[in-house]
């Protein structure tokens, strides 16, 4: 290792910077968590204080669990996120494989066309999407959200995955062909396991915006039985009165599943981001 990296001063500075960034990033989450356990008065009197014996309360959680069908919202969010992610990964990987593996006329153009979506935000098309959903009768169904999120996630997925698939050795795929594997088997059994880190990266990049999205649930599926968690939490925010205990409790609970999924993907994710940069 180089001398500069071993220098204790540099090492200290690097750690200090990283710790400072971690604190800044985690601070809002921390504030949400501690305040969700405090009484309404305590939240406003001293937002940064930890809950104490006389300020501690679970009223927020109780409200959330009683009022509104919190578990249904939760389930809706989960279904939409997991199904959209599965579709994005499946179709994204398939398109990426075709672009990376097969030479056909217009391959380049097709790749550019599929990547175009990265540059154009899907929300620009909200009105058209709403019209389409209305005429196909998908409004207020989870499918409306799943389809939109799948479309939103595909461009980046195709772009990232095709780059990774190009790096999978040709010899390996050819060995499979000589051993009599079909193109589908080569894709599912040989190539997919090798680009798993890239898949995890794509999954995380897509998962968080889908889970947190308020826009499309509000427009396409605002009915009670299709509300997602983010939309469901909005019932506690009123024009004049906001039930902060409930809002903070709902948000705290909404963090959990994303965090669990993130932990699952993160080992793969780190490899995915650094591969290519470091051998």
């Amino acid at each position, binding site marked *: 290792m180089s001398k500069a990296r071993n220098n204790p001063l540099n090492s200290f500075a690097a750690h200090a910077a990283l710790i400072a960034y971690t604190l800044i990033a985690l601070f809002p989450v921390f504030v949400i968590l501690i305040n969700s356990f405090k009484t309404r008065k305590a939240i406003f009197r001293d937002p940064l204080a930890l809950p104490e014996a006389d300020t501690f309360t679970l009223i927020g959680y109780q409200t959330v669990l009683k009022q509104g069908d919190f578990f249904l919202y939760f389930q809706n969010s989960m279904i939409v996120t997991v199904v959209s992610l599965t579709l994005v990964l499946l179709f994204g990987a398939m398109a990426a494989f075709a672009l990376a593996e097969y030479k056909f006329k217009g391959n380049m153009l097709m790749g550019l066309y599929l990547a175009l979506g990265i540059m154009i935000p899907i929300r620009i098309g909200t009105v058209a999407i709403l019209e389409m959903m209305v005429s196909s009768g998908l409004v207020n169904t989870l499918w409306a959200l799943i389809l939109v999120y799948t479309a939103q996630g595909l461009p980046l997925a195709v772009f990232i995955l095709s780059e990774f698939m190009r790096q999978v*050795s040709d*010899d*390996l795929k*050819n*060995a*499979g*062909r*000589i*051993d*009599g*594997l079909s193109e589908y088997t080569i894709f599912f*059994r*040989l190539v997919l*396991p*090798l680009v798993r880190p890239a898949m995890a990266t794509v999954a995380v990049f897509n998962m968080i915006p889908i889970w947190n999205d308020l826009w499309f649930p509000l427009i396409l599926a605002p009915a009670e039985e299709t509300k997602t968690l983010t939309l469901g939490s909005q019932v506690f925010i009123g024009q004049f009165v906001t039930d902060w205990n409930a809002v903070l409790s709902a948000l705290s609970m909404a963090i959990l599943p994303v965090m669990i999924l993130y932990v699952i993907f993160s080992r793969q994710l780190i490899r995915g981001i650094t591969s290519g940069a470091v051998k």
Partner: protein
Amino acid sequence: MTALSLTNVCKSFGQVEVLKDINLTVEEGEFVVFVGPSGCGKSTLLRVISGLEEATSGDIEISDNSVNDVPPAKRGIAMVFQSYALYPHLTVRDNMSLALKQERKPKDEIATRVAEASRMLSLGDYLDRRPSELSGGQRQRVAIGRAVVREPDLFLFDEPLSNLDAALRMNTRLEIARLHRQLGASMIYVTHDQIEAMTLADKIVVLRDGRVEQVGSPMEIYNHPANRFVAEFIGSPSMNFVPAERLGGQNGQFVGIRPEYAQVTPNGRLKGKVIHVEKLGGDTNILIDLGDDLTFTSRVFGQYDTHVDQEITLDFDDTKCLSFDAEGQRI
């Protein structure tokens, strides 16, 4: 029965012609080596035979059956790749048995064949390991084993030793030669290493720019090269070409002298100054500047004591010289 016959095979990528009218037969049980400089089309030819690339025109027959429209898996071939190309998520055993499973062979037959191949290649101890837990030499043996279990009509090797270090390369070379004797199978082997070509081949095919330059046994090619390219490519250090007029011959022609046939003698016909000496212990390579930008290599057996800038003279045996015309063809 011929193991392989190619008739007028051409292959082009867009405008670029990579293979030009290749005609070739491989007899049953023959070990054929394709050799040539990089970019000569030898790997492409192998891929056309395997079916991974489609020939632009021409006929390919394996074991007397036309395979032009047959997918790789059904051609009765097995291929060993330079990069091993083992399935990273499968154990050695599963790597070797995958193709047989695809062919829906009975389980006990698969087990016997894998056992037999792993015994032959001494892979018995590694059957339950994954490729990442094996050394380079072991991985290449697994790749060879994967080919052996299929009992193909034709083995294809695509520079299988290029990724191995020198000592391992020699061992694996011996192993492949032994395997060929044991199995008696037809094999095609692509390499740019002429030592592999000379030591393994029953028949060498020298390729250049997508054309077959010469086909013959290693000694035929060494002793009777068809043209200057083959003469220069086969043999190490490579053959010297001296303009014939320097030796009293016809203008424009060249005399080809292999380094080992030119020996240092007091009153030789070639005179020059030593510019470099390579002492290998067993023999000594002396590079001599003959003037007019002409460098000549002489290979002296044993250890010869000379030094740079020494003036020496060389002579050679006329009967072992080859003559080439200005276009490089043998006369």
